[in-house]
């Protein structure tokens, strides 16, 4: 056994290359607001700028084939890029691009050669950023209950409906979505999967007023949107995987969303902030409640973060070595969701009301602690509620069924 992410000399050379490239190309003064909803247009512009620069080198989507604009690199090299970006406080991509991260996997599996050539390179090169459009008012946990419809007229599909909890603050060039193309048809055989240019006439969106905006892991997302479709016309070319085959297409990226995507294997930055606060307080600096079991609470927080790291490390190892991956994704995701609430409670107990305010004078860590309080609640539902994670785990473990269910295809 070896738990260390060791690098070969070649990989270390690559790391040095990435590091010096980033020192040179990462725009100065990039923003890191505690609440990603506070990201300014200027800050966003810099993120996209860095994304395009990374994309040009094939480092934005490093493991995808270079013929489509990816980097053609190994998982280890991708991890090096992630680690080096992390030193600058960013994930890969350096902005919310869930559509690209998830949707691209489906296009790779289900798209025709022409579709791959048309849709993937702009995403992988960072020219286009993409939102995912899945949830609807009547399709939450029951994601297949899509009410947005599309019907075909000639070479076009006409879409009507709405999607919620979409994307982030500063717009997107493309989206992909699940649409009902066979109203009244059998469940799971009535959906289709489309790529949608967001400048199509009839597409509008408006921000949602939520407890907290950013809730995705990885690049924080900012405000969520409601996206409306009113007689939106789409070329039939934009249908991926064939009509009424959308559920199978979606299964590919849902697998990724259910906890397998997290490649951030570093420690927990919140933990480091809290330890600093705690130690400063012991020497009289910052405000700590009179909490007799503080060491116990901190130990629990640390243990939770270690278990999370190890679950993700294991998943990365299983995936990168081609071993079977079944319940492991949702297990890690469940742990992240659950431990977030435990951590929130512990922080509230440790720091009392200080944990709850973003006030510039008295708020802790520029508001990062307060954001965790809200974010931990919001984090319970994206990518499937705690209940949905357990449903998937139970199926994959075969509880009550004898035969464990296989996981969705990833590649």
């Amino acid at each position, binding site marked *: 056994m070896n738990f260390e992410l060791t690098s070969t000399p070649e990989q270390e050379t690559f790391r040095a290359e990435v590091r010096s490239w980033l020192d040179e190309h990462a725009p100065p003064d990039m923003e890191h607001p505690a609440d990603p909803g506070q990201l300014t247009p200027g800050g966003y512009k810099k993120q996209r700028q860095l994304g395009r620069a990374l994309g040009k080198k094939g480092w934005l989507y490093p493991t995808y084939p270079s013929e489509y604009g990816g980097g053609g690199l190994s998982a280890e090299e991708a991890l090096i890029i992630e680690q080096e970006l992390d030193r600058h406080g960013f994930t890969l991509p350096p902005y919310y691009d869930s559509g690209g991260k998830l949707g691209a996997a489906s296009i790779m599996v289900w798209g025709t050669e022409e579709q791959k050539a048309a849709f993937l390179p702009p995403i992988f090169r960072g020219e286009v950023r993409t939102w995912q459009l899945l*949830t609807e008012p*009547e399709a*939450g*946990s*029951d994601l297949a*209950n899509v009410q947005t419809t599309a019907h075909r007229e000639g070479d076009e599909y006409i879409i009507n409906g709405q999607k*919620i*909890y979409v994307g982030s603050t500063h717009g997107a060039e493309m989206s992909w979505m699940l649409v009902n193309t066979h109203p009244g048809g059998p469940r799971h055989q009535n959906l289709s999967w489309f790529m949608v240019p967001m400048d199509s006439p009839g597409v509008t969106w408006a921000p*949602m*007023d*939520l*407890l*907290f905006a950013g809730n995705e892991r990885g690049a924080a997302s900012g405000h969520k949107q409601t996206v409306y479709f009113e007689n939106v016309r789409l070329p039939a070319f934009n249908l991926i995987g064939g009509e009424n085959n959308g559920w199978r297409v979606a299964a590919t990226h849902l697998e990724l969303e259910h906890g397998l995507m997290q490649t951030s294997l570093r420690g927990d930055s919140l933990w480091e902030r809290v330890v600093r606060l705690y130690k400063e307080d012991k020497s009289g600096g910052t*405000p*700590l*409640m*009179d*909490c*007799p*079991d503080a060491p116990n609470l901190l130990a629990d927080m640390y243990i939770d973060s270690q278990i999370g790291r190890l679950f993700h490390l294991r998943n990365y190892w299983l995936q990168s070595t081609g071993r079977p991956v079944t319940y492991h994704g949702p297990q890690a995701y469940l742990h992240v969701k659950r431990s977030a*609430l435990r951590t929130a*409670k512990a922080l*509230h*107990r440790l720091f*009392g*009301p*200080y944990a*709850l*305010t*973003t*006030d510039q*004078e*008295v*708020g802790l860590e520029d*508001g990062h602690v*307060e954001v965790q*309080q*809200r974010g931990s*609640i*919001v984090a*319970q*539902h994206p990518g499937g*509620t*705690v*209940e949905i994670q*357990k449903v998937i785990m139970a199926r994959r473990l075969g509880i009550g069924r004898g035969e464990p269910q296989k996981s969705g295809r990833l590649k």
Partner: protein
Amino acid sequence: MDLALTQSQEMLLAAARGMVEREYSKENLLLLESGDTDLAETLWQKTAAAGWPGILVPTKYGGEGGSLTDAAVLLQELGRAPAPGTFFSTAVLGVLALMEGGSEEQRDAVLPKIAFGENRIALAATESRYGWSKSLTLTRATASHGGYLLHGVKLFVQDAANADLLLCTARMGDGEVGLFLVDASLPGVSVRPLPGFVSDTFEIKLNNVEVPQASLMPGGRDALEQAILQSLPVLGAYQVGACERVFDMTLDYANTRIQFGLPIGRFQRVQDHVIQIVNLKDAARWTTYEALWKLDESKPDAATAVHVSAAVASEAYYQSCNAAHEVHAGLGIMREYGLTLHTRMSRTLYHYLGDPTHHKVRLAAELGL
């Protein structure tokens, strides 16, 4: 033994529920959350017109002379909204502090005005190190010109926005902690709201505020302790009402939200969240009302019951909101749905007047452990 409310309490409850549903509607609370101070004023005037602020004020000062349990009935209904804390800070904590620690002159001057809704009070006790032990008071009261100069910073003060009077702790020349009733409009008093995941929380700066000798409350810090002890289960009743409302919302959603062709409440995992809320709210209700009864009856072990109920009620409200969020998923975090009004308030009240850990430490002390 009779665990029922009295008939007059039942009538009070029914009236309060009607008024709270009408005036402290979700729509109004969302406006208040957005900072609509005119509406806050209007709602306070309506509350005053109903005679509620006098519920604990003795009749000789123009109040109702009600019991703590009577007040709890009102608070329980306000908690369903959840209404802002002004009423609690003024009509419960403020009145009890005046009764426990005020001079006869102070009571004469203030209690009638409270009963008529003309004065609002905020408790300005906590400071940079948050907590409820005497040693944490750093604000100084220096004797000056026959009165005092108050100087210091009060942090995480609840409900200070419209308060006319501040119950303010300060360290005296002799090292003891004194309690002052301070006119909030005096020069040197500045009030600043604190943003974030809290409700109606403020910083108050006291910059050499000149207060007269008569503003010192003779009961001092001990009287404040006593007032807080009595107030705690009344605040608990607010949390009980809030839990009830969260339960109602969650059960209703579990019964009407259809996913996979069924009301989601048919799934055992969803049921378990609802059951958790019922268990929490019932535990909070009965520990709270027993503590109220013990206080009203001056039972010797009332403090034990108070600390039990305070720990249980704060935890219950906090965890009920969490469980409700699990059931509501995406809808729950939409501001306009109204659940987050409770979530925010449950966080504020979790630490206010002592968090569950604090009360468990006090409980252990009461039990001689």
